[in-house]
């Protein structure tokens, strides 16, 4: 298995005086004659720099992935102010995650998951540290096996590391030179401007969450505040193809082949969420996938939003638990003067799209992780509600 991992190894060279030199990997280093440092699992503590983990490195105009660091995507990702995301996973040799059909895979101690938030630069504009493109187009993002640093602006990298004591979340913010990211336990705010293809600009405050706020989404069990878990690496989110350097392959099959995943059932038995952005897919499936990843980590039976009686994960039946004709509990002015979460057929009368259509902290949902309105996501939820039949039969 480790041999296969080696075959997959991305080219990774780090300017460091570290003594470890892997002869096999040296062959790959065409540019810098530096020794190679393997990914470093820190069993405790909070390393000051992202580079201390040796998962990625900004080198030669590219954000490169180290050997055995595997990129992945989700069928439907969480919206984060139109940021693009490079997600990676790495595990020590000889261990693997256990497959689960519904929950986050059971990852072994030593697992390091990263998510790098970045934006493509506006077309034809010089880098100015605040202008970023509002675009779903990823075609300019990649150069070979890494991100093209001449085309993208890196904001932050969040590290989730599985230690003996459980998962730890560490936010790192990229420096102005885009050479490394520094630990920012208390988070950060940055004044950015989304630039659309037609040149229109939308200023917003990009918010890097603090460590506790990471747990606001990743702490899925309110009875154990110290327990947090990754959200994305679940079967239904990962069950899709990825264009790896050595070819296109289903991500779950790929992880299994590399020895990162065990217990994968046959393909037909693996759940798959819809791609929210693929208009050819069923609107209900797309909306439910969107709610699942954007809302379901809080709005589930055990999550922080279980105070509301509203569950938006993929498993919730399409009745009042999902918001059908359900009066709000503690929405405050987040109701927008609407009486229930979803009025079938009437998105304008429903609370759900109202809260999605706000960027005010007291009104918007999700309540953290974005500062702008996800117009396309909101339109999807509106279309879904518009397709619901029936009414709420208010009886008084």
């Amino acid at each position: 298995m480790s041999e296969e991992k080696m075959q997959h190894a991305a080219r990774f060279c780090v300017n460091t005086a570290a003594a470890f030199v892997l002869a096999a990997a040296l062959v790959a280093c065409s540019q810098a004659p530096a020794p190679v440092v393997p990914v470093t699992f820190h069993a405790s503590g909070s390393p000051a720099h992202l580079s201390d983990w040796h998962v990625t490195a900004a080198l030669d105009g590219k954000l490169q992935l180290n050997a055995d660091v595997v990129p992945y995507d989700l069928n439907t990702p969480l919206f984060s102010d139109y940021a693009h995301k490079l997600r990676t996973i790495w595990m020590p040799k000889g261990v693997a995650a256990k497959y689960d059909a519904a929950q986050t895979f059971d990852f072994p101690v030593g697992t390091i998951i990263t998510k790098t938030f970045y934006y493509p630069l506006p077309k034809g504009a010089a880098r100015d540290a605040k202008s970023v493109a509002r675009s779903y187009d990823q075609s300019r993002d990649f150069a070979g096996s890494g991100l093209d640093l001449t085309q993208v602006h890196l904001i932050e990298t969040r590290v989730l590391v599985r230690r003996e004591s459980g998962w730890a979340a560490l936010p790192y913010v990229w420096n102005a030179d885009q050479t490394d990211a520094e630990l920012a336990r208390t988070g950060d705010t940055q004044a950015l401007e989304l630039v659309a293809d037609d040149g229109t600009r939308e200023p917003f405050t990009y918010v890097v969450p603090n460590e506790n706020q990471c747990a606001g989404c990743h702490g899925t069990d309110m009875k154990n505040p110290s327990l947090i878990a990754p959200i994305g690496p679940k079967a239904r989110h990962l069950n899709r193809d990825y264009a790896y350097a050595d070819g296109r392959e289903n991500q779950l099959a790929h992880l299994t082949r590399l020895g990162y995943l065990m217990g994968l059932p046959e393909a037909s038995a693996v759940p798959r969420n819809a791609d929210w952005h693929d208009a050819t897919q069923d609107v209900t499936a797309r909306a439910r996938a969107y709610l699942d990843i954007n809302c379901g980590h809080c709005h589930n039976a055990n999550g922080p939003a279980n105070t509301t009686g509203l569950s938006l994960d993929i498993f919730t039946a399409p009745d009042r638990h999902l918001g059908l004709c359900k009066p709000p509990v503690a929405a405050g002015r987040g109701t927008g003067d609407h009486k229930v979460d979803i009025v079938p057929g009437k998105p304008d009368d429903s609370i759900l799209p109202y809260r999605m259509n706000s960027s005010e902290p007291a009104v918007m949902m999700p309540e953290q992780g974005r500062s702008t309105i996800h117009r396309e996501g909101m339109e999807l939820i509106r279309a879904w509600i518009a397709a619901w039949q029936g009414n709420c039969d208010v009886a008084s």
Partner: protein
Amino acid sequence: MRKLVLAALVVTLAGCGRGAEEIKALTADESAYQKHLQEQLLDAKPGSVIEIPAGKHRFDRGLTLRVNGVTIRGAGQDKSILSFKGQVAGPEGMLVNASDFTIENLAIEDSKGDGLKINDGENITIRGVRVEWTGGSQTTNGAYGIYPVKTRNVLIEDSIAIGASDAGIYVGQSNTVIVRRNRAELNVAGIEIENTINADVYENTATKNTGGILVFNMPNLSQPGHSTRVYKNHAVANNTGNFAAKGAAVASVPAGSGIVINSNPLVEIFDNDIADNKTANLIISSYFSTGYMNKYGVAENYDPYPKGIFIYDNRFSGGGDSPDGLDLKTLKTAMFGITGHFPNILWDGYVDTKTLVNGLPPAEQRICIRNGDTGILNVDGPNKYDKPSTDMAPFQCELTKLPAVTLPAKA
């Protein structure tokens, strides 16, 4: 087009009541303290005491704590002020997900959303905390001031809540709760106990709210509440117009409500001073009167009726003279004349007809009044106020008194 409309709306909202006051970005010192305090919250260990020095400390992001056994202590609720005016992220001023938590002697001002939210945890003490929206009663204020939800063994004392657009002090889905010696004013709901089991609410002052003290049960939640005692409080002149967003539970509370019981069983109201609340000093109602009841949106096992309500030995005066809403105004004038007033207690008249025995609820589910010559008006809500009644006969009964709530002693 939509964007233009939105932009206009945001400008309008931002302009409401605050004049052209500009919110300045944090200074370097303010940013440094924000970072320092959040680091203290991240690094706290069980037993840690985090002191907030005197002074007004500004924040542009919400504070969060997730470690058990922490005390946050200021130098006084008028001295150590955490101000969130200009907050750009994080809906709450402070969000706590932890047990054995004490917060005392400080103020939280002008958070965008809730002031102090404590979500899940036990052994919670909130003492001498002031949560305030300094611009007074405005719809744009945050929803809840002091807001423990899904908590157990909670003490809220000697605190102040001002200006919440929902409830000043709101205890939701909790168990074993004491709320005492607090002051709530200029909120929609002054003090609200919702879906909570075993709560004692005493020696509080609720004034100038839309509704003074509320005991509610809402549908679809983790637990139905019961057993609340409200006593020795002052619920006086709660006549502020309802400024809650429609759809919020408290949006249906008429301005001028002293104490309101909605859909909640086993509630005891005694020895209170309840005065000058213009709709009624005391309202007992069912979920049907909120306008939210509908066929699909309410769990089938939800009980919308107030049952086992015992009202005795309160001191009522004034009030009931200018009810909120056209229906009640018309009813008042028709029954009591232009210069007259409602009796002290208003009941919406919805009963669980399945349980009636000889026209009355079972003994333990009745509404019982032992309060001198205090009268009640059954407005006959089910028949659209067709046959309102002031007959006291159905209410002349007694209920077994509830035991006092006791919190476990601190270890």
